[in-house]
């Protein structure tokens, strides 16, 4: 027995998640092109781990396995984890991070739709706190052939020098800590045009995928606009105060995970704010905290911590930003 409405739009969680995965493809392609095929191995490891964890946890919780496993939500989490991690990370670290995200971050809170924290960012935070050295080793541009890269991921010895380098954000922070200024550090060829050779293209590919999500109405404009706007604003303020200590807004927008975070991480509906005004507050808060961590904190990029911190604030934000109900606008007593 079911009741009205009898008509339903042809839509499903699977379709939404599938679209997100498609929108991730441009950035994945660019990242593979620039940094080598190790990312594909990471995607595979994370996907398999995520599916296995999901199946085991659903089984333990006594929930139907098949529909939840095929809703693709676990794969989206897995892919988001894989693209955040350094491609040359050893396989066990990826497995650890992914299973932490799925088991602790998702299922212990009640599964899909119930997790207060973004699972992918939980995995990232766990790994960067536990293995800071491993997490800072990114491959250089076209640095190694496929076989070598896969060899690194799946064991074998790790000869870091020469093969890997710091991310631009990392290099900047190290440079500033060792007494350099922004201008000098940026002279290094690794910094490319704006925010690190190659990194700019990855960032733009994320933006392209994000625009696709916007066009397909999977996400709304609020979070990306507030995120990018707030990041530009606070970094511009810092840069205007002291350009030798604070990088330019252009650098902050294109470096690290800014655009990915704006379109793919902060827009996670489950752990994010849901009201239109709440989304603006939520995204701006992430951008502000991320910039603060980048500028003053101990970690090179702060998106993950910023997202987790703002996740905590979501219930409050949502409660305080309820949109006016039809007929109850402008001072009418509710």
């Amino acid at each position, binding site marked *: 027995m079911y009741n009205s409405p009898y008509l339903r739009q042809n839509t499903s969680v699977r379709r939404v998640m599938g679209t997100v995965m498609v929108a991730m493809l441009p950035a994945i392609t660019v990242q593979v092109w620039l940094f080598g095929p190790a990312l594909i191995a990471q995607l595979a490891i994370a996907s398999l781990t995520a599916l296995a964890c999901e199946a085991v946890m659903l089984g333990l919780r*006594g*929930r*139907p*396995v*098949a*529909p939840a496993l095929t809703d693709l939500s676990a794969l989206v989490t897995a892919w988001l984890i894989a693209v955040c991690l350094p491609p040359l990370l050893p396989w066990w670290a990826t497995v650890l991070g992914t299973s932490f995200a799925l088991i602790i971050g998702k299922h212990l809170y009640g599964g899909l739709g119930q997790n207060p924290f973004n699972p992918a960012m939980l995995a990232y935070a766990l790994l960067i706190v536990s293995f800071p050295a491993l997490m800072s080793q990114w491959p250089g541009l076209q640095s190694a052939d496929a076989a070598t890269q896969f060899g690194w991921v799946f064991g074998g010895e790790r000869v870091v020098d020469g093969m890997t380098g710091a991310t631009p954000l990392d290099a900047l922070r190290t440079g500033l800590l060792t007494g350099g200024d922004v201008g000098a550090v940026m002279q290094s060829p690794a910094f490319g045009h704006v925010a690190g050779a190659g990194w700019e293209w990855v960032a733009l590919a994320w933006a392209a995928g994000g625009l696709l999500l916007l066009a397909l109405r999977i996400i709304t404009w609020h979070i990306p606009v507030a995120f990018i706007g707030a990041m530009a604003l606070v970094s511009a303020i810092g840069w205007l105060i002291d350009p030798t200590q604070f990088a330019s807004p252009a650098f902050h927008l294109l470096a690290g995970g800014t655009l990915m975070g704006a379109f793919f991480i902060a827009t996670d509906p489950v752990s994010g704010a849901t009201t239109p005004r709440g989304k603006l507050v939520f995204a701006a808060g992430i951008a502000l905290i991320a910039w603060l961590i980048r500028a003053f904190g101990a970690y090179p990029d702060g998106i993950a911590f910023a997202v987790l911190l703002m996740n905590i604030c979501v219930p409050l934000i949502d409660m305080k930003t309820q949109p006016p109900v039809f007929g109850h606008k402008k001072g009418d007593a509710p």
Partner: protein
Amino acid sequence: MISALLVMLGLALALGAALGAASVLFRTQGDPLVDKIDAILPQTQCGQCGYPGCKPYATAIAGGEADINQCPPGGDEGVRKLADLLGREYKPLNAEHGVEKPKAVAVIDEATCIGCTLCIQACPVDAIVGAAKQMHTIVADLCTGCELCVAPCPADCIAMVPVADTVDTWKWRYPVFELKPVTHAPAKEAA
């Protein structure tokens, strides 16, 4: 070392004084707890709890004399609400006081009624109209279903009739949340 102890002692005294002052300044008048409990009780006034009415039972609960699971008309939900209000552990209804029944109203068989007025005196909510030697009748809208009129009736002419759903009082059911996977396989084969 001494200074630390003194600081702690000073703090303890200051805070204790503040608490004491607050308890005097913000003392609440009356006993709102009884009213809160009374608001949860169904007001059937049936006395099944062992107290002469809902308010006395509420007073007894507030005073710690009665347990929260003695009200069959309030049912399981009532016990849960009381447990919630009082911060106590939920416990199932005490069968000694009766079992939860669907809501019913008393109906007088007018043929058998002898007009003795005993039920009128028993009714806690004045829901029975009639006079001596006259046939009595029960105002169904006012009847709480307490059954107190049933026992005193010497002619055994009062029956409890369950209240049936009507189109106006019918409730939508709780939507079924499917926990088990739906097996689509046979349907596909059939199609």
